């Protein structure tokens, strides 16, 4: 393979890893716990910006052409970890405002407002994170130890894969395949039933919101350290829709389904447009790409709302110890449809909100 092809391949693989982290993060929040996090991209970019300002060094560097806060030069794993921490802290803050008493679609819209406002703030205050121009020339971590840039690219692919594996085995699987995951699915499918069974709905949602936020932050930090630049144009709120579409296409709530979604939607779509010969004006392909993403979300919501690889329906036999209520098809704790995350009407959420805020 030529050097260019290898470089292309490795960059693609890093994107695959980052996108997989992204869908796992949002799938925990939305697919498993039913939190409509339309601000998802905000947490990814919080991680990215944090890692960037902790890697770049003082803002007088590079001739001082960009201005930003903090400006430290920490050794490698620290900026990525800090990116996760900052994103998690931000998620805790946002979660405290949004998750406590609002109905599902309200939450979604407030989160949308939050992410749009955050973009505006960053763009309007150039001294905070260099405004609309974004941050660039972020040094790639440990790159001085590699003789060739191709060797380094492969190293970064391995690093991304290792992070994915660690996140999956240490976090994602431990949540989705455990009693904690069951409780989260219960709050998603029928939150007042979960509250009636003594689950702390707000606490559970806040927990998974923060965990998802940390993963989102790490994904952003990993990406920015590799591509060395980050700007507000890359984290407009619609980017969250791409991750949502990936999850809907793959199979909401299914760890492996959403991985497939990550491969199909963000990765494949970005690559396909590379091979479309440019026609019309330069922005045309870009605009049509967004039309297709929106159309894909609509088509799947209509024809296959549970995705290509639907979440396994978990059922429980009646009559076992302590299982007097749950059964498939009833208001069972585990038997609901993944799509029907927030109840079906205002009446439902009344009871929920009342119970939730009373906890």
């Amino acid at each position: 393979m030529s050097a260019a092809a290898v470089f292309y391949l490795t960059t693609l693989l890093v994107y695959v890893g980052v996108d997989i982290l992204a869908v796992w993060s949002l799938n925990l929040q939305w697919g498993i716990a039913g939190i409509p996090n339309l601000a998802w991209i905000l947490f990814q970019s919080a991680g990215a910006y944090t890692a960037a300002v902790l890697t770049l060094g003082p803002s007088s560097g590079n001739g001082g052409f960009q201005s930003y806060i903090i400006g430290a030069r920490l050794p490698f794993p620290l900026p990525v970890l800090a990116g996760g921490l900052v994103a998690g802290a931000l998620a805790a803050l946002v979660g405290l405002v949004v998750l406590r008493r609002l109905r599902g679609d309200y939450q979604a819209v407030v989160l949308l407002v939050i992410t749009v406002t955050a973009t505006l703030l960053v763009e309007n205050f150039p001294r905070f994170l260099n405004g609309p121009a974004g941050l660039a020339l972020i040094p790639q971590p440990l790159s001085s130890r590699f003789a060739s840039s191709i060797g380094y690219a492969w190293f970064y692919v391995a690093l991304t894969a290792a992070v994915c594996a660690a996140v999956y085995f240490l976090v994602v699987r431990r949540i989705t395949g455990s009693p904690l995951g069951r409780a989260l699915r219960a709050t998603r499918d029928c939150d007042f039933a979960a509250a009636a069974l003594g689950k702390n709905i707000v606490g559970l949602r806040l927990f998974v919101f923060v965990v998802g936020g940390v993963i989102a932050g790490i994904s952003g930090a990993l990406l920015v350290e590799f591509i060395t630049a980050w700007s507000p144009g890359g984290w407009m709120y619609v980017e969250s829709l791409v991750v949502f579409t990936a999850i809907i296409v793959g199979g909401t709530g299914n760890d492996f389904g959403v991985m497939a979604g990550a491969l199909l939607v963000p990765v494949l779509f970005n690559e396909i447009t590379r091979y479309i010969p440019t026609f019309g004006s330069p922005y045309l392909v870009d605009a049509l790409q967004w039309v297709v993403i929106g159309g894909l979300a609509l088509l799947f919501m209509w024809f296959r709302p549970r995705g290509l690889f639907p979440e396994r329906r978990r059922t429980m036999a009646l009559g076992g110890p302590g299982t007097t209520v749950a059964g498939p098809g009833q208001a069972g704790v585990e038997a609901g449809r993944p799509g029907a995350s927030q109840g079906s009407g205002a009446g439902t959420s009344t009871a929920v909100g009342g119970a939730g805020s009373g906890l």
Partner: protein
Amino acid sequence: MSTLIASVGFGLVTASILALAAVGFTLQFGISNLLNLAYGDTMTAAAFAAYLANRAGADLWLMLLIGGAFGAVVSLALNRFVYTPFRRRKTSLFGMVIVSLSVAVIVQNLLLAGFGPSFFTYQIGQSRTLRAGSLALTVNQLLIIALAVAAMLALHLLLTRTRLGKAMRATSTNPSLALGCGINTTRVVGMAWLLSGFLCGVAGVVLVANTTAFQSTTGNDFLVLVVAAAMLGGVGKPYGAMLGALVLGLVTEIAAGIIAPGLKEGFAFALLVLVLLVRPQGLFGDATSRAVAA
């Protein structure tokens, strides 16, 4: 002090545009239980329709009419052919948000594909500036304020004095009971979408007439303020949306005039978060909307 007075003037103009938009948005939520995120892009589409009319020689009044009619038709079609079918399939509340967000992205990018990323301007001529002390507004801006006040009054009369308005309120409060009382709810919902779509289109045209230059993202950028105004007043409450628009319009312009222009939306947003923390049902929320917002 003079900055403050001037800002209040601009605040009233912004509040008027916001009120037109937020009342339409909140009507859609009240009647269909849907937060329509394609609302801002429908505004842009209507603004583009009026732009084409303007190029063909239409004046501001005709443009308002064309923009309003276009917004009404687009909104009705969206509800009839996209939102209602999805709702019939029992798509969850948040699923509907994703549906409307997808529609928003599609509309916005179709506009981008059709018109390109450049800015457009209406040719409506410079109107005279009227001054009263440090308060300075153009005739067109006064016109926008008058238009908004007239529209709010007309809406008030419609909702309280006519059979259609009462049927809308009944449908919004309890659709199945309204249906049971012999109200043709499908027709009433359609009328409500036409009406809100008309307000949406008019709001799009006055937004552009006031800000002078627009592009395919203009309406969507404004949507954040619209949503904030509607939520501030309690979503689904037309009078709440009017109050929310007034408060937000004044706060954003005064903040922009006195503190920093970049903080405009930031202030609007901080206000919204504060209200949601203290009073999640919004300023005008009563017992029923508390249930909705709980």
